[in-house]
């Protein structure tokens, strides 16, 4: 199998860094934002930002496939 490109893997690591490994930085109540405790707000925010990162990763992969194999990657 062709491995995913470095760019797309780096984009995928951003949500991991933001919501998994960094928990002690954001696990607190204040400041409350939009009425949510900060930790809750932070995770909900990343429900929106993760698709943005993965949309970027998708475009990394698509442009690479096109460069490699012409139009073969497009769906029928």
């Amino acid at each position: 199998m062709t491995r995913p490109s470095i760019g797309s893997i780096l984009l995928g690591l951003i949500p991991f860094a933001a919501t998994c490994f960094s928990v002690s930085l954001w696990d607190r109540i204040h400041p409350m934002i939009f009425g949510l405790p900060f930790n809750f707000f932070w995770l909900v925010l990343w429900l929106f930002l993760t698709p943005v990162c993965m949309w970027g990763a998708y475009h990394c992969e698509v442009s690479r496939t096109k460069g490699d194999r012409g139009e073969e990657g497009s769906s029928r």
Partner: protein
Amino acid sequence: MSPSIIALTITSIIVLIGSLLGFLARFHHKMDLEQWTVAGRGFGLVLVWLLMAGEIYTTFTFLGASGWAYSRGGPVLYVIGYAPLMYVVSFYILPPVWEVGRKHGLQTQADFFQVRYGSKYLAAFVALVGVVFLIPYLQIQVTGLGLIVEVASFGGIHRSLAMIIGVSLVAGFVFVSGIRGVAWVSVIKDALLLATVLFIGIAIPRIYFGGIGKMFAALASAKPDHLVMPGSTTNLGHLWYVSSVFMTAVGFYMWPQYFAATFTAKSAKIIQRNAIIMPLYSITMSLVLFVGFCAVLVLPNLSNGDLALLTLVRKTFPAWFLGIIGGAGALTAMLPAAIQLLAGATLYAKNLFRPIFAPRMTDQQVAGLARIMVFVLTLGALFFAIFTSVSLVSLLMLGYAGVAQLFPGVILGLFSKRVTTAGVFAGLIIGISIAALLMLTGHDPYYGLNAGFIALGINFTVTALVSAVTPVRVGGFEQPSLAMSASTASSSNRV
């Protein structure tokens, strides 16, 4: 009419419409094994999305997540922590899995191991792991179904009766329509669930506190410790959060039913696009958590936290609305149960029974056996749900950790040429043994770390070490001699 009758009628109507859709889904399709298990690999973005969303949002997340918010507090955030990350992982893993699936006509997760590692014993072991851990998962759905209907009918229907009726319908439409039935029931289930969860997640905090912000402000001043980790627990701290989120994110798609769902897609792009948009669906999960947090102040001293959401809804809204929640909740239990039944039955017939006991079976006989297994597994889950008093939640937690041990075999199988069959086999056995040892003896978390995470680390190490000293028998997916036997030929001309 009494409130009980009103609620019950509405719940029944919803369940019946949902099931009917499941039965009708088979129309115009000849149900051979390929159609029954992977719908002829013809689903577009919408059906794949419905299938994935429908399967992932189970009663365990619906009742369990609000229950955790109620009884444990802060640690429940791990639920919205791992959800987007498991889709990130799926973005990289599922498209190549799908490609191998199309090329070799794979229908199950164990098929993947068979083709990649060329060992029917490894494949059978993978199938066994899948079936064994699917049973507690299935049992949880059945129990949840009983609970939901019992509460929604104000106790008018005993939970055993509700379980028997609900599960018979599920087994029926799975038997008739296979995975197509599951996808079509998802249409009604996801629409209802989305609408009701949006409504109660916003309305309940508003009714009792005047809004979500005011509810959290009240909770933050009354019980500030409840909102951060470790919340109302002593051992679910930050180390636990990181290890649990990581283990669940990489391990979640190792549940065999999600492999089957992957194979239904008609292109790899659909799988990728689905992985991009799925995190947005988890927003509904945070609304479920609002209700659980609300219940902390509104209904203190509940004996069973898992009933927090249903009890609060029953206390707040009129009977007809409870009926809708009951229907949505019942479908939320039935749908994952359906796909779990389907995956378990196929794994047993195709990857466990045929290769080990009856190598001469034809594909048609395998399909027949799988359909019979639907009823056997249904009866098994019903038996556990009705007659065992022990909560099988601990077994399900072991299931999550257990299936995660398949991760090294899948990811190294896809991207490494050096990994060996013996290495994967050894790592898998040791990983599952360690997870079982730690969790069944009450050592989860162990030194603050999720037990499945520890097992996964050791599993990876063992896989690497054994692979280093054993010869590579199969280096990738390219050997045609090792391709699946009869099923490849029959499916390849349809792709």
